[in-house]
């Protein structure tokens, strides 16, 4: 069971490349690696604590209103993250902008609460949240690295490509997000077929 959680979350059922969930933050904030890391950590935090509460309440919440209950739980933790970022990391909060509150409607979180945390005991639910969050995190960082290297020639702000390299501005603009993600999903499909 534990091995399956790891394999699914990090590879075979990867939230971004396989399930295509949580597209809105994935595409929007991955202009720089720093933004990708911040968003990844924020999602891991919300996913972990929402799974914790949902798993604890799984026998109490009536079936008909469960989605509304989960949404309110998620919205509460997102509000905490938002206030925390505004107070301690105002620059990151500004860079992520409206995409922090939009974590509420990130389908990965609601999806894991509904599909896993509401049906499994606490320890498994927490592990699943961390692994799925980790899968989302490495997806974001990969996408952001490609876009930052090609779009600005830097990674985390450090110059790594020679000055003669002409940055492809389109990579940090919205179309670049779609093009890079499409290519990465195709590469994942290719790797899958080798196995």
């Amino acid at each position, binding site marked *: 069971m534990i091995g399956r959680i790891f394999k699914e979350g990090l590879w075979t059922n990867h939230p971004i490349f396989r399930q295509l969930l949580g597209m809105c933050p994935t595409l929007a904030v991955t202009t720089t690696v720093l933004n990708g890391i911040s968003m990844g950590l924020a999602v891991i935090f919300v996913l972990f604590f929402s799974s914790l509460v949902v798993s604890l309440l799984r026998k109490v919440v009536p079936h008909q209103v469960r989605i509304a209950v989960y949404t309110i739980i998620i919205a509460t933790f997102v509000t905490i993250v938002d206030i925390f970022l505004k107070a301690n990391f105002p620059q990151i909060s500004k860079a992520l902008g409206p995409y922090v509150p939009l974590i509420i409607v990130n389908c990965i979180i609601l999806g894991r609460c509904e599909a896993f945390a509401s049906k499994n005991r606490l320890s498994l639910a927490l592990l699943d949240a961390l692994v799925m969050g980790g899968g989302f995190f490495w997806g974001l960082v990969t996408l952001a690295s490609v876009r930052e290297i090609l779009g600005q020639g830097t990674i985390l702000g450090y110059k790594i490509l020679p000055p003669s390299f002409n940055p492809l501005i389109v990579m940090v603009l919205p179309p670049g997000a779609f093009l890079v993600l499409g*290519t990465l999903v195709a590469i994942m499909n290719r790797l899958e077929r080798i196995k």
Partner: protein
Amino acid sequence: MKELVLIFISTVLINNFVLTYFLGICPFLGVSGRLSSAIGMGFSVIFVMTFASSIAWLIYHLILVKLNLVFLEYIVFILVIASLVQIVEMFVRKYSPSLYQALGIYLPLITTNCAILGCALFMVARNYNFLEAVVYGFSAGLGFTVVLLVMAGIREELNYCEVPKVFRGAPITLITAGLLALCFMGFSGLIRA
């Protein structure tokens, strides 16, 4: 009046919700496979977005700001949207069964459409007045619908193309969306800041 026209044009074409803010990507990828379902989804979104934007404005300015409860904004907005979708669904079913038939399963799906919440949040962040908020909600929905229809048209043609195996399905759709986003960037010269 000039501001309203400006909001309309810039929201539909220049700052398109799907192609510049990446809002509503899930339904955009999910229901753009067929033109008929894209039409149903598009009109449901216009409908709900206009209402959601107006009602979120009223609640934010008349209740949350007055009572100093602005920190509850996210929780309140998401509840407003969820209940609004429910009410709209019941209303449409009662008064226009044919429209209900046409919108079908797309109405409940809209609750989880991040474009609706995004619209409410942007509307608050930009300090729009009530009329501007209504126009903003309507044009954001219209922009979503326009892009969804264009995409559905392209994907129906794409069915007849020889796409390399690894690019079939999601990758080619994403790349098509990327090219579409490039085209829409051409509109950015339309309004001089």
